């Protein structure tokens, strides 16, 4: 029992006795707050955590409200049947809209949400079956047996009970494999793809989840007010929901509840106060709201909860000791030493007229460390991006474990057992070290969002976390597992990326300048780690500028210059090669020998 539990308990107790103590008006307001919080919760997940802004959530509320209203008034169905119907309708609409628009970049996506948010609200007002602008009235109230939930006091427990369950579900989701992927969405999809997660699918799932929460709110709304009309579902209402999420704090789930309460109480207050100030008080309401919103975004972009959290420093994540006895995640069988792992044939990458990689071919065999070196701008990193599927190839062919992976999506290649790190470190600075590494094991488990929400994934989750802890211990960061990745120095962040890649249990590890920014001691430790991995049978392809480090480490070197392969061979042979010396130091070394040789190797 820590302080958080006490606060939570107090809030729950207050909510449980509220209907007995408060007047009708206040109970109705609490019901509205609960419904608003459901929608805002979806926005906190979608916008605050997933980084996708939606200006159309009210349209989803409307689809569900109109869906159940239509089914229960014109078809005479039970309101309880209206729930699955409303949710299915909302979910399918969200799926369709998501499939069409979620591939767009940030602001395009948000603009498109305004467009469909408007269109859907306009549709409600123009369809005869939905009562046009007058809407649908006489929607039946919910009943349980003979007990009618028409009274705000009786539906109160349904609204808040559902909200409680949904909060719990979302909280569970965020602490899981699916939740880590959702939290990893912000900051680009390349990182997710590199651990075998399809960012588009993650975003689509999240979008549908947020829409379903709005749908649930819509169903409650319809049977609570027992009347629907178009105006509560237009873009203005969507903005109000967004305002709730922003006001409460987009960073945490509790922000949705707090924000909904803040906005609705404030709105009610304004409706009471403004008419006293001016005869046109009703008109001032919108102005006052807009001003408050803008001031809020200027002064407190973190929302109300960010202040609260500053007062109550939350205790570091409680679960300290790893649950014992969790059997480790299944491991891949590594190919026998010497078998072909990677075969690149005639890889070409053109950017318009510029040829970044020109007809490069090389092989990597199981259990060896191959270094890719060359002067700046030689095309090494581009080569890496081609091999890992981060960028499409213009021409050529890549085989991985005997399978043609040319043109395969990056996350699929990653799932085959190819893990990588990045030259420009890609970590999620606001996630803990443990979570960042656990992200690497994404493709080794399968529990989805629903399983996570219902806590059916605990065994697998324990396995993932145990694996992540193991990899963290391997790089010597086990005691800092709960710190934020953003607090690490750059060199250590690079090492953390290696731990993340190792958590994927890779066949081939592709490292882009792992030693950059490391001190001498750290470099030695890194070298030892990589040699140890080789002994375990992991194959490594590495780009590195520190010649001393590379020469001591690798079995074979591929030298690139100006986008083409210059030579290939053992470190000693490469070191002695005149063409390599010329490429690094300029052609003054052996003027006569170089041009011929260089031309020969490019052709």
């Amino acid at each position, binding site marked *: 029992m820590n302080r958080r539990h006490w606060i939570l308990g107090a809030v729950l107790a207050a909510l449980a006795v509220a209907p007995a103590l408060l007047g009708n008006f206040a109970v109705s307001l609490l019901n509205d707050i609960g419904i608003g919080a459901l929608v805002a919760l979806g926005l906190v997940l979608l916008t605050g955590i997933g*980084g996708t802004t939606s200006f159309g959530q009210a349209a989803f509320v409307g689809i569900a409200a109109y869906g159940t209203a239509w089914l229960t008034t014109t078809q005479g169905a039970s309101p309880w049947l209206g729930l699955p119907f409303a949710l299915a309708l909302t979910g399918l609409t969200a799926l369709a809209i998501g499939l069409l628009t979620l591939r767009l970049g940030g602001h*395009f996506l948000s603009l498109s949400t305004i*467009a469909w948010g408007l269109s859907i609200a306009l549709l409600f007002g123009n369809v005869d079956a939905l009562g046009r602008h007058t809407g649908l009235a006489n929607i039946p109230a919910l009943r349980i047996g003979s007990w009618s939930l028409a009274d705000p006091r009786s539906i109160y427990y349904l609204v808040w009970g559902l909200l409680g369950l949904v909060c719990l579900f979302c909280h569970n989701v965020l602490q899981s494999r699916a939740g880590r992927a959702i939290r990893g969405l912000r900051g680009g999809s390349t990182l997710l793809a590199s651990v075998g997660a399809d960012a588009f699918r993650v975003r689509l799932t999240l979008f549908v989840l947020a829409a379903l929460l709005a749908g649930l709110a819509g169903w409650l709304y319809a049977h609570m007010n027992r009347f629907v009309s178009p105006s509560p579902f237009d873009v203005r209402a969507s903005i109000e929901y967004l305002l709730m999420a922003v006001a409460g704090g987009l960073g945490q789930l509790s922000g949705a509840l707090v924000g909904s309460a803040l906005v609705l109480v404030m709105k009610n207050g304004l409706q009471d106060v403004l008419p006293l100030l001016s005869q046109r008080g009703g*008109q*001032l309401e919108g*102005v006052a709201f807009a*001003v408050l919103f*803008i001031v809020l*975004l200027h002064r407190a972009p973190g929302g109300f909860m960010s202040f609260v959290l500053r007062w109550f420093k939350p205790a570091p994540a409680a679960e300290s000791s790893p649950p014992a006895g969790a059997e480790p995640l299944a491991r891949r069988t590594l190919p026998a030493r010497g078998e072909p792992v990677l075969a690149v044939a005639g890889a070409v990458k053109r950017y318009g007229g510029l040829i970044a990689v020109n007809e490069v071919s090389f092989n990597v065999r199981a259990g060896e460390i191959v270094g890719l070196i060359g002067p700046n701008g030689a095309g090494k990193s581009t080569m890496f991006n081609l091999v890992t599927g981060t960028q499409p190839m213009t021409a050529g062919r890549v085989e991985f474990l005997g399978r043609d992976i040319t043109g395969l999506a990056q996350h699929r290649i990653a799932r085959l057992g190819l893990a990588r790190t990045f030259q420009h470190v890609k970590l999620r600075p606001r996630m803990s070290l443990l979570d960042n590494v656990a992200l690497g094991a994404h493709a080794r488990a399968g529990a989805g969002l629903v399983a996570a929400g219902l806590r059916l994934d605990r065994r697998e989750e324990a396995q993932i976390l145990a694996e992540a802890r193991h990899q963290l211990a391997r790089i010597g960061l086990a005691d800092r597992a709960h710190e934020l990745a953003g607090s690490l120095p750059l060199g250590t962040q690079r090492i953390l990326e290696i731990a993340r890649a190792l958590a994927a249990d890779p066949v081939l590890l592709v490292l882009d300048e792992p030693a950059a920014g490391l001190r001498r001691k750290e470099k030695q430790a890194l070298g030892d780690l990589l040699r140890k991995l080789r002994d375990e049978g992991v194959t490594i392809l590495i780009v590195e500028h520190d010649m001393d480090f590379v020469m001591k480490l690798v079995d074979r070197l591929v030298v690139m210059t100006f986008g083409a392969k210059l030579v290939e061979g053992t470190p000693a042979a490469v070191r002695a090669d005149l063409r390599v010396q010329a490429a690094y130091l300029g052609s003054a070394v052996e003027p006569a020998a170089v041009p011929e040789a260089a031309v020969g190797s490019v052709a």
Partner: protein
Amino acid sequence: MTWDVALILGIDGLANGAVYLLAGLGLVLIFSVTRVVFVPFGDVVAFSALSLAAFETGRTPATIGLVLTLAVLAVAAELWSLWRRGEAHRMPQALLGWGLLPALPCLAAWAIAGRAVPSAVQVVVAIALVVPIAPLVARLALQPIADASVLVLLIVSLALHFLLSGLGLLFFGPEGSRTGPLASGSLTLPGGFPVSGQVMLMIASAVVLSAMFFLLFERTVAGKALRATAVNRVGARLVGIRPARTALLAYGLASLLAGLIGVLIAPVMTMYYDSGFLIGLKAFVAAIIGGLVSYPLTAIGALAVGGVESFASFWSGALKDVIVFSLLIPVLMLRSFYGTHVEEEAEELDA
């Protein structure tokens, strides 16, 4: 549908398209320079139309109060930030720029209101009256967070629209108004179709203004500064272009465009305090077709939106807006299909 109807609808669509073209240019201009999707653009359009209507009926336009209110707030904000930075010596300059300059058109409007002046003067003053609005609003709400992410800027910009339309309701009231045509007479096309002078004027204005836009960007230093800022803000700053000042220029130009649009459509459409929003949104559809960066594609998009709207209103007046916004879906699909996916910047909403 007969050919006659199609022709009438086509001309109508062209006139709509001309309006969206001008609005689209303004939106792209602001977005490319400041990364702000300027939703309140449409409100400025409505204000200029309502100002002109006020002049015509001999009233003093409420826009004066609106502009002066904004100017007072902007002066206060500017003085406060100067004082905090310890640059008190620059205060008179700020007072002139943010206080006196916006007050000049107000003075002119006050002078001609209720007097018999040529309608050309009324038009010019109505446009001049709204020019300060976008820069003032931007100074107050957007400039302090100029480096925030596109999404935060978009949210603030939407809130600004609600603010301005709320103020519009307060200042202008809920009544709609329509003004007399700017151009009388009509042209008869071969085949006997009359095209009203007003429609001709709208199309001609769009063509002339687009050409002027092109010249501005290609031939003037200020235009080049705008382009440079659009391409790379940091780079522009390095060569001595001040982004805040360029942004001000962009907002001013866009406000000017909005004013022009307002007086152009006031005679053909009854304008209310919030009519601008839909005009702005349809211009967005055009601008999105242009990827929010390309002027020529925006122009094509504007004509397409105008045409679709005109034909859609023939089939279903009530659903025409739904049809226009649905036009976005195929456009967005094409964009996402051909769009090169650059690694997005990390969007941090919560600081």
